[in-house]
């Protein structure tokens, strides 16, 4: 099932590997860079990489949100926080569970990889689709933004509404928590 057929091209493969390695290196930098500010910048890089991945998965709308919200808004917030707390000078030290945490993350990575490889995804992926269905799939993935918009206000209107209430709660909370007495 390759609706766009791009996956098979060596160019796509190359771009994917570059982006993937970029994401991992950036994420690695977030946790290992000595300078918190640089770590924050690495985080932005990682976010941008993920946005690239979204593009490669035919999710342009998500890529846009990713860039605007994550690489834009949240990163700015984080950088503000880093600067406001003036803890930049203390570097980015690890705690005494560092090694344990590392082994744990490694074990998790191992299990995840095992699960991903051991699960016969092919059995799920390669189910026979009629030509009409295949065409329908290709059409959906050719232009996702309007469909997502439709989904959000129709089928997923309930979580959409709830999310708005959630944001209200978060705003209220943030105000309460930082308000000076």
């Amino acid at each position, binding site marked *: 099932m390759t609706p766009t057929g791009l996956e098979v091209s060596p160019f796509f493969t190359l771009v994917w590997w570059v982006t993937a390695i970029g*994401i991992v290196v950036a994420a690695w930098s977030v946790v290992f860079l000595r300078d918190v500010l640089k770590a924050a910048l690495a985080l932005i890089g990682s976010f941008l990489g993920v946005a690239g991945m979204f593009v490669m998965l035919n999710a342009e709308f*998500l890529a846009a949100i990713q860039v605007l919200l994550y690489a834009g808004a949240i990163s700015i917030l984080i950088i503000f926080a880093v600067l406001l707390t003036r803890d930049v000078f203390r570097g980015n030290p690890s705690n005494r569970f560092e090694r344990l945490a590392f082994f744990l993350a*490694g074990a998790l990575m191992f299990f995840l990889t095992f699960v991903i490889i051991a699960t016969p995804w092919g059995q*799920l992926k390669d*189910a026979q689709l009629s030509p009409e269905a295949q065409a329908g799939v290709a059409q*959906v993935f050719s232009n996702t933004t309007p469909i997502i918009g439709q989904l959000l206000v129709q089928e997923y209107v309930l979580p959409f509404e709830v999310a708005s209430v*959630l944001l209200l709660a978060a705003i209220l909370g943030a105000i309460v928590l930082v308000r000076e007495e």
Partner: protein
Amino acid sequence: MLAPIGLEHFLVLSGALFSIGLYGALAKKNAVVVLMSIELMFNAVNVAVVAFSRYIAPATTAQLPDTARFLLTGQVFAVFVITVAAAEVALGLALVLAIYRLRATVHVTEMNLMKQ
């Protein structure tokens, strides 16, 4: 040369991102860095759901034209994850600032007023 990119590639990438995020969340002293690591974990989830949406959903969902748009369930999922994560990190930063004001530290290892 390189195998064509498939679902597994995206999933392993997601797993790697998740594990790095988990490591950061558990091992870094600075609360802001912990929050950043948690963001990495959420991003990992997003990569996974969007990849699933792209590769798996067609086989299980798109049998009929009028349900074809449910192919994008994974992407909608990611929209909500981004929204919620943004709210959560904003709140987390607010708390970090509040604590910084009270105690002049952002190191979670120094937050142990309550134990045993």
